[in-house]
């Protein structure tokens, strides 16, 4: 009577077998996750980090190198510490830090090494290596950090840091992995791709305890690491060091450029910081301190600070006026003080004299002619047309747009457009008198110091420039991006330059007597920038020697009063140092170092 039950039993057996077959079909054939998980299990990618490229100055002085450091790794399963207090003391950590690191390591894995203490210096490690034998389960892992031979160039070089989540996401090449180090600012960032080299990868098979079981697929997929390329900077370290010394205790910037190439010879943002502060163990501590400093040492002034240019801007007005044909080189213009306050005496002025004495009234009159070129129209109609023309001319001088310097965060400055005034006053409701302060480098116009230096380059080259750059060449092949070899014309005819340059040369006898240097013809222009918040800013741009310019320079010193004092003195000393190799005017040096420019 129960014979049919044998079929029930057989059906159940077959049913179970079918369930197994289907389930196996799913996990073995349809679901790929298991295959991936299996690979993750056995294949350990061992990354070989290449040496980061070294950085030299233009005279082949080593500026940045790699320093070996050690990360202390821990394998929690093997840990044996007879005396935790002694351990903490040896490594200079607190009990809490110890507990935190240990529990983090345990959470990660009991059997695989994880970072316990980061970045122990080579010397320190050597001094504690003997005592370390008391503790089991800790291993040193060698790494490198950036080492610096000089305390200069902080803002130029930048620093390296662990990549963050946002940067990881932004990395479209998928090169970086979490925990990688990359250049964050400065040259380390802008030349990251050449400096970092190429990571090598070895695929190793490991068993469940992480023990090496040989290479995967006989190493077919392995790649060797390629060390990063070295950089040769255009910076002249000696000049840089001298410039930094002169700027000590001041706020401002110095940019010196070789006019014939656009190579940056010196680049100072004052105050700055020592690059070693942002390398190694105390990075986060120092970084915090630097960000909280009210003098903003991390702010890269030559590129990021935007200042009113002041009177140095008159040079540009002069050239635009000549090119537009609204004035000739020798036209005498009578100037009294009726239009605007002025330090220059009343009398007849031409371009050369206008520059020499930095006559505000002369340049305001010139500016009006530039703007109002269409006498048949009303002033309100003329102003936007004239300003548009002016703005275009400005842009051709590399103003109002970034110059393309090979450093991150370059600001474009501000060249006001008709649209700006339309917004301020309303369309058709402003005329040249609303723009007066533009003529003398006050008002809305803002330049960053490197643009000012580039103006000096344009003067030196009589009408063209090369994009300023910090790196002279990359690697052993001395490669330089063609972008930096391109000659950029300003559209100002060469014939207009001599008279302006003559004015600049005479200016040293006019407004910048301190900058005079025996045997060297320096052409310069002072600027005293009105500062509603405090003392005026002192600025100076110059190039020298007059006939075969080797150096173009701009100096900007905040709250230092007259351009003819602080800025002109510093420029002159740097020109002397660069061209003559030594500074003989100790009195001037002392004057600058003393830093007391206000009467």
């Amino acid at each position, binding site marked *: *009577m*129960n014979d049919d*039950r*044998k079929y*029930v*039993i*057989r059906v159940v*057996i*077959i049913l*179970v*077998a079918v*369930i*197994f*077959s289907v*389930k*196996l*079909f799913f*996990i*073995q*054939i349809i*679901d790929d*996750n*298991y*295959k991936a*998980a*299996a*690979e993750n*299990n*056995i294949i350990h990618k061992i990354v070989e980090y290449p040496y980061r490229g070294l950085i030299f100055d233009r005279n082949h002085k080593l500026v940045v190198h790699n320093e070996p450091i050690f990360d202390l790794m821990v394998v929690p399963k093997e840990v044996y510490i007879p005396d935790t207090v002694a351990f903490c003391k040896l490594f200079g950590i607190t009990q809490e830090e110890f507990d935190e690191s240990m529990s983090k390591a345990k959470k990660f894995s009991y059997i695989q090494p994880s970072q316990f203490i980061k970045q122990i210096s080579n010397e320190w490690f050597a001094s504690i290596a003997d005592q370390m034998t008391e503790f089991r389960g800790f291993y040193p892992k060698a790494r490198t950090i950036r080492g610096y031979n000089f305390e200069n160039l902080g803002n130029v070089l930048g620093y390296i840091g662990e990549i963050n989540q946002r940067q990881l996401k932004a990395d479209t090449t998928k090169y970086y992995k979490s925990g990688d180090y990359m250049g964050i600012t400065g040259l380390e960032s802008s030349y990251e791709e050449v400096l970092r080299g190429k990571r090598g990868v070895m695929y190793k*098979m*490991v*068993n*469940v*305890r992480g023990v090496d*079981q040989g290479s995967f697929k006989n190493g077919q997929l392995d790649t060797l690491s390629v060390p990063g390329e070295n950089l040769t900077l255009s910076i002249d370290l000696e000049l840089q060091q001298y410039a930094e010394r002169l700027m000590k205790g001041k706020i401002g910037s110095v940019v010196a450029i070789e006019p014939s190439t656009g190579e940056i010879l010196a680049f100072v943002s004052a105050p700055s910081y020592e690059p070693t502060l942002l390398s190694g163990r105390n990075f986060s501590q120092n970084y915090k301190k630097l960000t909280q400093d009210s003098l903003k040492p991390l702010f890269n002034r030559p590129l990021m600070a935007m200042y009113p240019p002041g009177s140095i801007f008159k040079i540009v007005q002069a050239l635009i006026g000549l090119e537009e044909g609204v004035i000739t080189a020798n036209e005498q213009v009578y100037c009294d003080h009726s239009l605007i306050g002025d330090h220059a005496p009343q009398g007849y002025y031409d371009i050369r004299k206008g520059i020499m004495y930095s006559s505000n009234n002369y340049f305001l009159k010139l500016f009006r002619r530039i703007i109002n070129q269409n006498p048949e129209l009303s002033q309100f109609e003329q102003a936007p047309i004239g300003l548009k023309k002016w703005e275009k001319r400005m842009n051709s001088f590399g103003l109002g747009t970034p110059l393309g310097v090979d450093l991150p965060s370059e600001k474009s400055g501000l060249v006001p457009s008709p649209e700006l005034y339309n917004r301020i006053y309303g369309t058709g409701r402003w005329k040249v008198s609303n723009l007066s302060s533009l003529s003398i480098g006050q008002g809305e116009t803002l330049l960053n110091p490197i643009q000012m230096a580039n103006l000096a380059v344009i003067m030196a080259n009589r009408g063209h420039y090369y994009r300023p750059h910090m790196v002279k060449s990359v690697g052993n092949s001395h490669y330089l991006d063609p972008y930096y070899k391109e000659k950029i014309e300003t559209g100002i005819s060469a014939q207009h330059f001599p008279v302006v340059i003559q004015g600049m040369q005479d200016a040293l006898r006019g407004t910048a007597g301190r900058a005079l240097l025996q045997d060297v013809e320096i052409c310069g222009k002072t600027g005293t920038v009105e500062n509603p918040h405090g003392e005026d800013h002192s600025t100076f741009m110059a190039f020298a020697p007059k006939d075969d310019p080797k150096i173009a320079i701009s100096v900007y010193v905040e709250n230092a009063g007259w351009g003819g004092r602080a800025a002109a003195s510093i420029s002159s000393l740097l020109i002397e140092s660069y061209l003559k190799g030594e500074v003989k005017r100790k009195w001037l040096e002392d004057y600058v170092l003393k830093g007391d420019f206000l009467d």
Partner: protein
Amino acid sequence: MVLIYFAMVILGWVNIYAAVYDEELANNILSLDYNPGKQLIWIGTSIMIIIALISLDYKFFDSFAYIIYGVVLFLLLAVLLFGREVAGSTSWFELGGFRFQPSEFSKFATALALAKYLGDINVKMDNLKTQLIAVGIFVLPMILIVLQGDTGSAMVFAAFSIVLFREGISPIYFIVGIGLIILFVVSLLVSKTIIFIVAGVACLVVIGASVKHPKRIAITAIVAFAVFATVTSVDFLMKNVLKPHQRSRVISLINPDADPLGAGWNVTQSKIAIGSGGFFGKGFLEGTQTKFDFVPEQSTDFIFCTLGEEQGWLGSMVMITLFVVLLIRISVIAERQKSRFARIYGYGVLSVIFFHFAVNIAMTIGLFPVIGIPLPFFSYGGSSLWSFTTLLFILLALDANRMNVLVR
């Protein structure tokens, strides 16, 4: 039948070889220090057992069934007192360098005793006393084995209920039993309140539909109470009856990611190994997961991982087919027996092998909590191989003499 047996044993050995294969050991892997070498000895001794069993008078099993059962019970008791503790279970005897598990032998002994008892012509399956005694025969060794701490092996004895089913016990028991198991699992997955609401609504609907049948209402009430009791006892069962490691195995079955490096490790790694096998597998000795020890217990309880990874779905199918053919074949053999004793014994064999097969595979692919029971004929281990060999070949010995029964 014998062919299937040898096919399985050889396949099993090959897999054990693969499971522990290591290039450095390639030359002496057959030495007695390693599992494949030892397994060769077990296979050899198994063949001796086969010869002994076949040459024994078939009447021996019938006559000595209770005695063998008694001896095994005694051994189970003895091992509790004098046994050696291995991995939390005192289920091993150790004689010299040689260990064996009496619980393995209790399987065929119990099958014999059950067959002997139910084979008596005077025994009627629908008698409650008969049912109790029959259940008692396999529950007794089960309890002893649970006491040894080897819950997995003990659970095997529950499989003997298949025998009772074949012999005509009321299917109600099975329906209720399976119902309770389903309820148990559901209550682990779903919140209790939901179950109560669903059950309550169902209950009211049934009662509403059967107002005129008081008996149905009574049954519904009883079922409802049983549901209520089971669901509320789940927590108690989980917390107080199951040991922590058993509880975590149940939890990790339901949610393998709960503790992937702890309780879930075995199953996760086992599934990874099997799942990475693909259709054709990675090839003999090419399994990476098993070779590099990611799967624990890979030559014993998790031997299927090696097969699944190296031979893929195809290999797994071959193995499952072998088992299905074997089990159906045992059923056919059992059915053609003239004596009730031999038939019932046959189903005992079927029950045990089926249970092992089903539960072992199910646990490696994450369909069942991990309980440490071997895959018959495949897993490494002397006791289990001997045990399954004995189980199977006693049946074959009986089958060979089935005509003689008719003569008597």
